[in-house]
């Protein structure tokens, strides 16, 4: 299970990176990065997964005393939460940039933005 998720995650990262670095359209690049981010999140959660355990929430089903043997490692989940939010933040920022870039040159082709080089 964890392996499936992890493999999917990695594949998603690679697909995302490939899309981001081969599509010239800036919006497509951002979409691709979003896919890659999803992949990263999957990998993160998958690494923390432990077979046969439940979510790290204490309730009647999982009393405090049994927590150690019953719950999944909560840390990766906490990290993923943060990562998701940060990912959205960056995505939003990139979108704003994309729009602004579009305003300046009227194109979304990344290869047109090479005024600065060498």
């Amino acid at each position: 299970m964890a392996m499936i998720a992890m493999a999917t995650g990695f594949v998603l990262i690679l697909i995302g990176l490939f899309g981001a670095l081969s599509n010239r359209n800036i919006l497509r690049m951002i979409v691709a990065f979003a896919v890659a981010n999803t992949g990263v999140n999957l990998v993160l959660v998958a690494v923390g997964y432990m077979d046969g355990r439940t979510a790290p929430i204490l309730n009647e089903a999982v009393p405090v005393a049994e927590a150690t043997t019953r719950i999944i490692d909560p840390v990766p989940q906490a990290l993923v939460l943060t990562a998701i939010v940060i990912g959205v933040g960056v995505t939003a920022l990139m979108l704003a940039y994309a729009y602004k870039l579009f305003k300046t040159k009227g194109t979304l082709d990344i290869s047109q933005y090479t005024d600065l080089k060498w």
Partner: protein
Amino acid sequence: MTLSIGIALLLAIAMVVSAIMATRGRRSLGISILAAGLASLLASVMFLLLGAPDVAMTEAAIGSGLTTFLFFFVLGRVRRGEHD
């Protein structure tokens, strides 16, 4: 157990397919964005299977929902810009 693995496999395949749809350049941008959102949504299901309901909620609400809308807003503005 095998059931969940089967679901997971299906999910994985679906995710990869939608990821490819999202990143292949031939389709319209709208479809790409939707496909990316779908991948994200599927991921949140996967998170549920992985015992991470918090993450699942977040991914669904933020990663899949809000992000898609952000994309569409920008796409809309760009489209309008193209018409000018």
